[in-house]
């Protein structure tokens, strides 16, 4: 009998609920996870419990129901519910990404633009020894031609950003980075570093979702591809990533061949 079937049986016996009742609670939890994840927001347990009407049930049912929903999401959809712990929050990670399911799925222009820019920022952070200060990040985005804070012409650049590009990010890229990528989706983390009484700096790092969803080695290979060079040309980053993912140089090369 599967893990889900065993857990269902335990719950039916322990809590004196009908099979229909249990199925409805689990189905509502699965629906909530899938719908909430459409926006790639962090999913809070408290919000899920409220939306699925679990507040009027025995409190001890909440965790097993969520666990059962997670088992179904994993087995049926190939989606892992990752508990970010300490904070009773979850993200969904598509396990089928390991087999490049993305090539089959439909992305709108907006989604593709957002994912593309997110990936570029993650790559920038990775190649900059895992953190980058705010000024450097937005300078980089300015040179990419997707950001202008009104000073681009002073620096000798072309301040014209295409209307279509602006629209994809609702006209405000800084807001997209800080509100969407940091606060809502947790692809990035923003840290405040107080240097002395008069100055403080903000740094961007990979957030919890990026750590869960994205392999640094994959991002690194993309960067090497853009620069058309061997990984060993970026020795410091290459060594750090191999250590992080416990890969030898041969493993890295083999992984690269199988990706192709």
């Amino acid at each position, binding site marked *: 009998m599967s893990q*889900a079937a065993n857990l269902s049986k335990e719950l039916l016996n322990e809590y004196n609920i009908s099979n229909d009742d249990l*199925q*409805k609670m*689990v*189905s*509502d939890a*699965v*629906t*909530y996870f*899938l*719908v*909430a994840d*459409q*926006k790639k927001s962090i999913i809070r347990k408290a919000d899920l419990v*409220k*939306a*699925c*009407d679990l507040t009027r049930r025995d409190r001890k049912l909440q965790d097993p129901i969520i666990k059962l*929903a997670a088992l*179904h999401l994993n*087995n*049926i*959809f*190939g989606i892992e519910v990752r508990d970010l712990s300490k904070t009773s929050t979850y993200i969904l990670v*598509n396990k*089928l990404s390991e*087999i490049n*399911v993305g090539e*089959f*799925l*439909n992305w709108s222009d907006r989604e593709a633009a957002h994912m593309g820019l997110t990936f570029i920022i993650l790559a920038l952070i990775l190649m900059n020894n895992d953190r980058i200060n705010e000024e450097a990040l937005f300078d980089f985005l300015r040179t990419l031609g997707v950001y202008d804070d009104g000073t681009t012409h002073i620096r000798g650049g072309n301040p014209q950003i295409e209307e279509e590009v602006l629209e994809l990010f609702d006209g405000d890229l800084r807001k997209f980075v800080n509100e969407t990528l940091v606060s809502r989706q947790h692809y990035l983390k923003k840290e405040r570093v107080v240097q002395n009484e008069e100055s403080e700096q903000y740094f961007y790092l990979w957030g919890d979702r990026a750590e869960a969803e994205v392999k640094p080695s994959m991002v690194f290979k993309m960067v090497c591809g853009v620069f058309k060079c061997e990984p060993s040309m970026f020795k410091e980053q290459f060594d750090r990533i191999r250590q992080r993912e416990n890969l030898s140089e041969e493993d890295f090369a083999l992984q690269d061949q199988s990706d192709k």
Partner: protein
Amino acid sequence: MGKRDGNKMRDWHRVFLQKVMSQGYMSGKEIFVFAMCLVEKFDGMPGFPKINLGGAEDEKKAELAELIDDLYTTTNEALEKINFQIKRGCQEVKEDDTYEQCYAFVPLEENQQIAKCQKIFSEQELEYLKTICHHLATEKIATEMKLINLCMQVGISANRKKLSTIEASRVVRSFVSHGYLVNNRKHSRAKSSGGTYHLGARLILELETWLKDNIEADLCRACKKVVFVSVECPMKNCDNVYHRQCAESKPKCRDCKQPLKIDGVATKR
């Protein structure tokens, strides 16, 4: 093709499920093309059926149809435990001489609170869609102008703001692109005014429960499912109606045996 692997969900079933979910709905043709992509991706993996894409056309089609059937059945057996289904239906009006098949990922029960999280359409737009459903339940088909004029009946926000005609026109196009309405431009009577519109298979599949509960829609005598663009039995005291496709497959009334006539696009009550 080999036997099904004990109804067990495998990665190709999950990819199929994610694909239908990500698109919301897929036509039969899209599913067929997608099945070929799955064969290219998973060919040779343990448990994946052997299909020769380079073989004879008829044999290839039959094997792919069997694969699609397995994807559909196995996935639905798993989804049933959590009150979801991939539903399969057909458009009610022919396009290029076929009734296009449609697959849609559908929750079987609705949780109102969760449904409010969905952001494809606003509450106002959803209310407009339901108004269109009521209208098309009676009229079966409508021109774009008629649909746009229905927007005057919509307005639920505190300040009773209604959709403007420009907004309504945009929203109708959006309903068509999402498969909830179908624009049949080939209808000869209304070619010049942009064709006619009728309810799409996706809407009928996704809102099946809501349609049964809220709209006095007919049921097809042959398949017992909700029907809008219907063929009526010509016999005076026989109230039977049929899907056009059901009538074509067996063109006699199931009860009174009168021949069914399928003329034009739709028959009004």
